[in-house]
């Protein structure tokens, strides 16, 4: 850095032209689309004062909504962590007929309007739906319970896990596993000691995004959850109800808490990834 101050400035030619322009545009866009709304939300929260804020978010109905949302999102994420990893593994490691179709289907939850997803899940799992009948007979109710919320969250967020793990798994050098084999490692040891450490950062990143997405999921859930306050009412829906009642402060406070969760999650995920990838640091 100090040499730059002494030596006459030499400007390296950039490969892409218009660096300043493209960076400027991106920053402007980011500001308009992300930063300003978030800032507005925070200002709205600040406007009402800490006492009112606390009163809103600690009301029994709000606390219940947060609890339900967090619990359901946590369960959905655990399910997706396992199933998403398995799915990515199958898609990368095995050849079978219909593989490309399956791979394409992985994007359906991304592409499908969430309301459509919610409606079809409700139809399938309601007492007279295909799956619902069977589960009903076994004494399990999905629709109008927290399991309905979990189901909707899991459905909409599974691609995040699959699509972050998949490319990393594809790039994994097969020689690493072969080396482990020649050193006497069995399949389980190879997975735990060679494959898992390599995909762990991506896996965690995928799970975090899936969790964040589940916290904010709305469209798919409201159809299947029944939306009973204290029982199956999620935080995003409560914020929406407050907005409908022209209670802007109430809506903003709940939204702020959700935003807080998302930011904490993002930070935790980044720290974890930083730790998991520590061996890449300080490379020459």
């Amino acid at each position: 850095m100090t040499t730059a101050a002494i030596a006459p400035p030499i400007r390296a030619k950039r490969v892409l032209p218009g660096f300043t322009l493209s960076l400027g545009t991106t920053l402007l866009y980011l500001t308009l689309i992300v930063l300003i709304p978030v800032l507005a939300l925070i200002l709205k929260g600040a406007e009402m004062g800490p006492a009112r804020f606390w009163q809103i978010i600690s009301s029994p109905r709000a606390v219940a909504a947060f609890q339900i949302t967090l619990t359901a999102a946590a369960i959905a994420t655990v399910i997706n962590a396992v199933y998403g990893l398995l799915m990515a593994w199958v898609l990368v490691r095995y050849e079978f007929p219909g593989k490309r179709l399956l791979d394409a289907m992985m994007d359906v939850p991304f592409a499908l309007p969430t309301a459509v997803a919610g409606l079809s899940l409700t139809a399938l799992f309601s007492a007279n739906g295909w799956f619902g009948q069977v589960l009903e007979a076994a004494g399990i109710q999905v629709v109008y319970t927290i399991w309905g919320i979990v189901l909707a969250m899991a459905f909409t967020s599974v691609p995040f896990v699959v699509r972050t793990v998949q490319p990393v798994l594809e790039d994994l050098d097969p020689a690493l596993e072969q080396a482990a084999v020649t050193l006497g490692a069995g399949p389980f040891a190879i997975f735990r000691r060679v494959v898992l450490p390599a995909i762990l950062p991506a896996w965690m990143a995928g799970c975090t995004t899936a969790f964040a997405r589940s916290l904010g999921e709305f469209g798919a859930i409201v159809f299947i959850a029944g939306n009973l306050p204290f029982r199956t009412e999620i935080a995003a829906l409560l914020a929406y109800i407050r907005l409908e009642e022209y209670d802007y402060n109430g809506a903003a406070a709940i939204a702020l808490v959700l935003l807080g969760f998302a930011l904490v999650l993002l930070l935790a995920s980044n720290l974890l990834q930083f730790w998991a990838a520590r061996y890449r640091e300080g490379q020459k």
Partner: protein
Amino acid sequence: MSIAISGLTKRFGQTDVLCGVDLEVSKGELVALLGPSGSGKTTLLKIIAGLEWPDAGRLAVNDQNWLQLAAQDRRIGFVFQHYALFPHMRVRDNIAFGLSVRPRSERPGKAVIAAKVDEMLHFLQITHLADRFPGQLSGGQRQRVALGRALAIEPAVLLLDEPFGALDAAIRRDLRRWLRGVHDATGSTTIFVTHDQEEAFELADRVVVMGEGRIEQIGHADAIHDHPATPFVARFMGATVEFPVTLNSGRAEASGLDISALPRRALPDGPARLFARPEDITLIPDAGAPWRIASRISNGAHLRFVLSHPALGEAEADVPRRTANADALTPDAAVRLRIEAGTIFPAERGIATTSVRSPGFEPVKEKSR
């Protein structure tokens, strides 16, 4: 451990990668597999390691059938072409891997493993690297760690795939000597793959020349250099100039060539093909001779000539620049070609002209210099 391979074949889809390989390696021997890229060297090595499976053939080690043994149970040390070190483990843990994955009943205690790793680090002279990650090592250092990881399980057979392929020339020479020392100290049976003749001949007890899925010749440096067994080996060993000749009771004759220096060859009379290295061709000015000097280029130490013949085509010759008659060898001069050394093979059907292959007929990227 002695290795006996016979009739090994392997095909990937439509390509025959190995077409009947027979090879015996005795206990404690250091053998080089030498051949151009794509000749099936890596595939052969991987079959021995249990990472690939042959379509037919036998592989026995100490008279035990290894084709019924999983790779995990073969106890071989394999050093991969690009090292394949575990990137998330420190050097110490990489070397300890083979010991620490053993089933609990056979696994040595933590202290024993640590002591063993220390011993290995010391033996390979990389003690100072113990706590680094592979990403923080140079190519030569990674190579040593990879070898340490393979040796830590005390393998009966050590297999190395182009162990020095990715390193620069000075480090290669260093590591070559060092590997020989390691081999002699451990007494393991070692097979290593290379496409570099110099490396193969300098390091190995015996060299196995492979070409397109077949073993072309097995032997020592001098024999392979002077008496290539097949046209493939002759070309691979640098005999890149080929002349069509006629055999007459074992003597070869051709227009404008003096082949009297070559010993008689027990081949039937008729057309044959002579393989020679450019540096084994001497040019003798002779006004009546049919060869003309088409071009003359100096690289300082040597003069490289391109010669042309009205019927036979072109040939190349390398002459030391300080030879007595160098001044007479000017473009357009008529010359006779005296072949000082070369090998004669039965004619390949349909080829009746001289041909010159550029010395590096294997891909350029594979060349070490």
